[in-house]
């Protein structure tokens, strides 16, 4: 095991990228795709919350059942900053487990501290490059690995509880693989 996580996990990370800059969205999307991640890119914190089903309205709008494994958001955005988005996510029982990475072209220490204190996984200085993205991906994947080893039983119970949001998130990914693996995914913590 150890370093080679990607060979163990069959599926890809689904990343929600939030940035008001069209140029940056395009670049981050490409970086993520090259790193074998599925990407959904939105232009604002509000859109992001809508996508995540957290804006008070019914979650059907924009929520295509694909669980988000990582959120990467720009810090400075009009309306809702990345920091505000981070806070909203961390105060939601459904979503707080999702790692949130903040990106900013400005390296302001107070800002970095504040984000990390609020629970950000990491603070990346723009421009973000491929090695940053790959490193992040590996960290997140490793996190899933560790959870698997530790929380097998606990996850099983949570997964099957009808009231748990995880049950909703478990909407089976439309994979081509046999039903055997579908059964497996019910028992184990859903990878991605």
């Amino acid at each position: 095991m150890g370093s080679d996580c990607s060979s163990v996990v069959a599926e890809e990370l689904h990343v929600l990228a939030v940035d008001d800059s069209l140029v940056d969205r395009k670049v981050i999307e490409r970086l993520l795709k090259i790193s074998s991640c599925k990407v959904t890119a939105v232009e604002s914190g509000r859109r992001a919350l809508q996508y995540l089903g957290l804006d008070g309205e019914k979650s059907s709008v924009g929520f295509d059942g694909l669980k988000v494994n990582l959120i990467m958001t720009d810090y400075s955005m009009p309306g809702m900053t990345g920091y505000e988005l981070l806070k909203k996510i961390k105060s939601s029982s459904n979503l707080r487990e999702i790692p949130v990475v903040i990106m900013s072209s400005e390296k302001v220490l107070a800002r970095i501290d504040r984000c990390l204190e609020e629970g950000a996984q990491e603070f990346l200085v723009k421009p973000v490059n491929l090695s940053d993205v790959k490193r992040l991906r590996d960290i997140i994947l490793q996190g899933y690995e560790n959870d698997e080893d530790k929380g097998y039983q606990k996850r099983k119970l949570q997964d099957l509880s009808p009231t748990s949001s995880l049950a909703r998130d478990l909407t089976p990914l439309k994979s081509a693989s046999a039903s055997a693996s579908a059964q497996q995914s019910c028992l184990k913590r859903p990878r991605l």
Partner: protein
Amino acid sequence: MERNSHRQLANMKKSLFDQGYLDQEQFTQLEELQDEANPNFVEEVVTLYYRDSARLIQNIEQALAEKNPLDFTKLDNYMHQFKGSSCSIGAKKLKNECTQFREYCRTGNGEG
């Protein structure tokens, strides 16, 4: 024929790097994101950047025209956006100009 245009392109790039207009490292990163499946990535990003920049520049010109008084906050915001996307493209000189401009905004230096 093709080799010529390749060489021309290489020379052009080099001169942009040398003159500090383009950040070699960042631009190279972008080029590395291009491949057979996405052969036009760099072109697409740069096109987006031009379009975005044109819009921003228009906004900035408008803001500068509203002279009395100059809305430094608005200008600063535009500059921040401009600087951000310039960074991603590797438009080094532009980015530096933006930084300078923002300094002027911060100090309320209308003349600058």
